[in-house]
């Protein structure tokens, strides 16, 4: 039985982090993961439930210093409809478009999707391609202290992150991609609608004279955490996108991933999917 002793709805970040500093708290944002996880008993509530929805510092999409800041409470629908994001980072809007269903998109938040730390989290792969950092706030005894961390270092295991118990993920930031930046994200599920990814593959870089530079690759649902594909990146960096390069890069993906077999797919099938989807993405990039 659930036994929450205290329920708080802070209306400032200051108030929220002070309450969080007292310890033993569960945070509520969109609720789309928290509700089913607690209903099934996969997760239990701490003694204090802090509803973050009224904290203004966690809201809104803004442009600042050549970058974009997504407040943690930004819903997936907000991402999908934001005209600034559509122009600056279409790969993120595209991922939002393929996220669960309309009803879930209207509730689920970007901060929640990251803190839930599913290896299959749909918004995470495009954010890795964009070089995102997470912003974390906590009470340092006298004031609100913040730190930032590259998103790729944030995840430590399925459902586990570097976030300390008293910390609140306040925002995700990434630089606005420059001229020539191209990014692709492909999610593969057993049916097109409302499915948890069997695998997802993202590749990005600056395309110039038939080569990709500053390449970033990222893979979802093929390791305990969403992963950067360093070997894939190295196989592509600065090389002419010939069929040989594409074959080598698709082969290199296999060194980046460590999939398991589960109800959705076998490890073997996941490996084949990543190889094939990478080839398809790179063929597409090379001809467009």
């Amino acid at each position: 039985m659930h036994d929450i002793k205290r329920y708080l709805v802070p209306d400032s970040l200051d108030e929220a982090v002070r309450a969080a500093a007292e310890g033993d708290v569960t945070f509520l944002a969109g609720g789309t993961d928290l509700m089913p996880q607690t209903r099934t008993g996969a997760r239990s509530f701490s003694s204090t439930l802090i509803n973050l929805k009224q904290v203004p510092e966690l809201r809104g999409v803004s442009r600042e210093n050549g970058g974009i800041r997504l407040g943690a409470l930004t819903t997936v629908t907000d991402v999908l409809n934001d005209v600034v994001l559509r122009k600056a980072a279409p790969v993120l809007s595209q991922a939002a478009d393929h996220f669960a269903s309309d009803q879930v998109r209207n509730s689920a938040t970007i901060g929640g999707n990251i803190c839930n730390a599913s290896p299959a989290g749909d918004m995470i792969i495009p954010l890795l391609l964009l070089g995102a950092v997470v912003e974390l706030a906590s009470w340092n005894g006298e004031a609100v202290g913040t730190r930032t961390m590259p998103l790729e270092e944030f995840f430590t295991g399925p459902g586990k992150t570097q976030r300390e118990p008293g910390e609140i993920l306040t925002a995700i930031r990434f630089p606005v991609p420059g001229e020539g930046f191209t990014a692709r994200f492909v999610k593969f599920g057993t049916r097109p609608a409302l499915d948890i990814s069997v695998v997802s593959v993202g590749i990005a870089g600056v395309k110039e004279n038939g080569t990709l530079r500053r390449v970033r690759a990222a893979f979802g649902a093929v390791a305990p955490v969403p992963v950067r594909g360093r070997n894939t990146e190295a196989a592509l960096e600065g090389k002419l996108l010939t069929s040989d390069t594409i074959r080598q890069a698709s082969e290199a993906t296999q060194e980046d991933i460590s999939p398991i077999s589960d109800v959705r797919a076998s490890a073997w099938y996941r490996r084949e999917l990543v190889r094939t989807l990478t080839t398809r993405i790179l063929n597409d990039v090379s001809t467009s």
Partner: protein
Amino acid sequence: MSVLHSIRFTLNGKPVRASVPVHLSAIDMLRDVLHLTGTKLGCGEGECGACTVIVDGVSVNSCLMFAVDCDGREVITIEGLRTDEGLNPLQKAFVQQGAVQCGFCTPGMIMQGTALLNRRSGMTVEEIRRGIEGNLCRCTGYRKIVDTIASALHETSSEEIS
């Protein structure tokens, strides 16, 4: 038992107050506390859409929503679609065109259909299919459901024009 929290919100156009355990879902509050049983609980994890309600103009899964998050908001359930003249045009269309088999998914389909109709006119059939991707019909009567929403959409847009 979790601590109780008092909330006030607008439910189907009328102000309501409730005192709910803070872990309670919105659907459990609607059905068990407020006795509005039109909204159905299917999967309980946001896969089936039978529990769809409209909150501040957008559709959400009430099985994934905390009841306390209804505080200060405007909630519409299937019971709230009825007008003084009876069923609303989308409900009538579902009846007239037989877009109902066992009926369990129907409240959710109509709520999501209403959310789509409110959003814009002139949707393609493909866009309607995408729009209800979060609603499952285990009788698999999708064709009539999609056609019915499309026809209601067409009627709504011609009413707007006239």
